[in-house]
């Protein structure tokens, strides 16, 4: 007897380069000492650069971390049913973190927060709340590959890709959004919103204040929502200014009802295993619905308790933010320098863990096929796992996403050598 038709698409996806690459690394992971010929992981968006800071905090504050306000461990306090959308004390701590991270005096109100088990369900919940089956979201590309799953799988909502171009440094183009919107209308597809990532993923662009205002104007004109995925807000590096959608929206602004921010601790705090996601919205109806939907994706109470303690140590958070940014900057600069040495240019990134590299001159044919061929050679011959741009729905072939935050400085020359091996013509 069949399973549902709606999941038949899901079962198929397992052979995309993204998953194949991950599996190869799992089977044969590079280690400087134990496995120097293993596959170097450059395909996982994780940050290992500052995890030691968190571990040190934990080692120092271990016992208070789980006790909360009491002196004695109270199983009853954390094992029993808790509000599905998160403990208020944790919301307060998260709101404070967001204020610290996004700076500029923006105060995040804990009452406007709904907590979820990771940013993945946060995006899915917003999809369910803002659009009906058969409706669509505009998504500028290249984009995070996971949106296919988060926005579409179970909701029946469509994604309309709005290609950004290398000529614009892959920056958001409002005219392109407008064209896509109108084309969708002609096809009878109702667009309910735009999903942006800021800092953008995979390119790493920071959206300028002007762009954000223009985006808001566009959304107002079409009467649609904006979902701003800001999960790399703390992972900015370099000198550019990060502007959150929260800065653009005034508390009395009628447009506040159309803006929803997604945040999380997986990227900025390097805690993807703990499953902490945030929906921040000033739209009471969306919040009320999202709150009820968190019953399917709630954060484990002991994890909330632990992180409340950690985030309440504001001095630690300050130090972490600053140190993390420094380390990201250093690794990014080294990787870019290494790539430049091989003649590989990349888009200047203001945040995130990726280097968006242009290898279009190095592919055998200017097509997705040529791009995937190069990816395969890099994986099988060079033994480095990068992500081909087609996985990120980039329409220009030859761009590759290289994640650098799982590397150590010693890995850079190794991976440069490996890539060089692949690019050298065979004698």
């Amino acid at each position, binding site marked *: 007897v069949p399973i549902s038709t709606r999941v038949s698409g899901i079962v198929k996806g397992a052979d995309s380069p993204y998953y194949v690459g991950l599996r190869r690394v799992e089977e044969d992971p590079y280690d400087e000492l134990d496995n120097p010929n293993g596959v170097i992981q450059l395909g996982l968006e994780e940050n290992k650069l500052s995890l030691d800071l968190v571990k040190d905090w934990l080692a120092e504050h271990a016992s208070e971390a789980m006790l909360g306000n009491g002196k004695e461990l109270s199983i009853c306090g954390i094992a029993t049913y808790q509000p599905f959308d998160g403990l208020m004390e944790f919301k307060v701590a998260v709101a404070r973190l967001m204020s610290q991270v996004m700076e500029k005096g923006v105060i995040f109100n804990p009452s406007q927060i709904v907590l979820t088990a990771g940013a993945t369900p946060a995006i899915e919940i917003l999809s369910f709340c803002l659009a009906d*089956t058969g409706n669509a979201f505009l998504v500028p590309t290249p984009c995070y590959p996971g949106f296919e799953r988060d926005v579409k799988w179970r909701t029946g909502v469509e994604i309309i890709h709005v290609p950004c171009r290398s000529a614009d440094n892959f920056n958001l183009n409002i005219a392109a959004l407008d064209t896509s919107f109108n084309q969708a209308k002609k096809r009878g597809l109702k667009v309910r919103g735009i999903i942006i990532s800021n800092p953008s993923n995979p390119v790493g662009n920071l959206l300028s204040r002007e762009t954000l205002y223009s985006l808001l104007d566009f959304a107002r004109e079409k009467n649609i929502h904006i979902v701003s995925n800001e999960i790399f807000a703390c992972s900015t590096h370099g000198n550019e200014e990060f502007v959150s959608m929260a800065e653009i929206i005034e508390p009395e602004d009628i447009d506040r009802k159309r803006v929803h921010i997604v945040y999380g601790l997986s990227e900025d705090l390097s805690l993807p295993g703990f499953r902490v996601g945030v929906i921040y919205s000033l739209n009471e109806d969306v919040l009320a619905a999202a709150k009820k939907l968190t019953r399917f994706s709630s954060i484990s109470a002991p994890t909330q308790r632990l992180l409340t303690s950690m985030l309440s140590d504001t001095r630690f958070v300050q130090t972490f933010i600053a140190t993390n940014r420094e380390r990201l900057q250093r690794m990014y600069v080294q990787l870019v320098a290494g790539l430049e040495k091989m003649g590989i240019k990349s888009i200047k990134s203001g945040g995130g863990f990726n280097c968006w590299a242009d290898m279009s001159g190095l592919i055998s044919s200017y097509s997705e096929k040529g791009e995937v061929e190069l990816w395969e050679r890099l994986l099988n011959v060079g033994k480095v796992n990068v992500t081909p741009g087609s996985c990120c729905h980039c329409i220009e072939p030859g761009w590759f996403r290289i994640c650098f935050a799982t590397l150590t400085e010693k890995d850079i020359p190794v991976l440069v050598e490996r890539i060089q091996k692949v690019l050298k013509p065979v004698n």
Partner: protein
Amino acid sequence: MVAISKIATGNGHGENSPYFDGWKAYETNPFHPTDRPDGVIQMGLAENQLCFNFVKKWVIEHPEASLCSAQGVNKFKETALFQDYHGMPEFRQAVAKFMGKVRGDRVKFEPDRVVMSGGATGAHEMVAFCLADPGEAFLVPTPYYPGFDRDLRWRTGVELVPVVCESSNDFKITRNALETAYEKAKEANLRVKGLLITNPSNPLGTILDRETLTGIVKFINEKNIHLIGDEIYAATVFTEPEFVSISEIIEEVECNRDLIHIVYSLSKDMGFPGFRVGIVYSYNDAVVSCARKMSSFGLVSSQTQHLIASMLSDNDFVDSFIVESKKQLLKRHKYFTWSLSQVGIGSLKSNAGLFIWMDLRKLLKEKTLEAEKDLWRVIINEVKLNVSPGSSFHCNEPGWFRVCFANMDDHTMEVALLRIRTFMLKHNEAMVPQKLCRRSSLKLSLSRRRDGFMSPSIMSPHTPLPPSPLVRART
């Protein structure tokens, strides 16, 4: 203004039903032994708080199981980064072993079939997404957990068709009832994709016998539909007869295993609802593969996986926990049902779960839904107990109430029983006309009580013949 979705604005969440009035009453005035002694006592939440001290002792003795200790912090980095939707191997192994132990090691569970989800709530929704398309249906025997209406239908678009079970035969799931429901679905043009059973039952607290389970497995094979077994109360079976799981039946009866799926969780059996540990265990490889990918929407926190892996691999702890939990549940159940019988309240004979299925049919003014609702409002507002009316469980007969007993300490239980006693005394007095003398009034109440609780189907096996409290009060 900018519109939002139908799912967001509709009533799929089910919280506008009168069922939630009880919860609201509790939330505005919750009982507290010292601060709010007149508050509403929560007896509508199936939570297991009876073994917390037992667990606490283990946690204190095993600091390495927690990341927040000098002994455990060295595991922090790998744990914090672990977001693989396969779940930690140690976690899956420990859960598979636990599930086996709960079934007396009569069956073995494979760790590779253990898939995580956001609690049993998330597990049920995930299974519905995997097995049925919008507009298709599951059959569900009544009375059933009200949350199914929301969890299985809200975002999935799947329909539920009740399999009506009757009190006349202790709500048994008969072949006849199954066939009737199946036909009804056909008439309504609904394609039935599966049958969902909860065993042990919520709200009944009973378990399905081998014969019934075999009949169910045969039925689903004949109709070629899926069988989803919600076994989240498996370890709460506190006395005979012994629990029989679907996993055991399929070893005995010919069955297409691709049809068999189990929903599990640690929320009830271990009393850890706050940890959000839900499990989908399927014998169908395609479902395992698909559910695993979907589990990204409800992965168990790696910190929690680590703790649970440690705890449930400790064989001594698990074995003694299972025994201790049953002991505590039996003790509480016995005391509670006996105390109720003292005042003429009977309940369905049960041997599992965190609640009883209380029989207040004779207190209804008439055999209607309205009368049940009226009685329920009296219980909430005057007796100040939040219990759950049978209608919210789709029970076809008014007058039944689910009453939870494992989510409170002994003192709170006493307060609840006192309130029930007081209410029943007032009620019994009110039923007697004023002019009758004391002796006859005693006689009248005695006989009514006897009818009420001594009929075999609803007498608890642990209820001795009690002396009348009325007699005690007067002598």
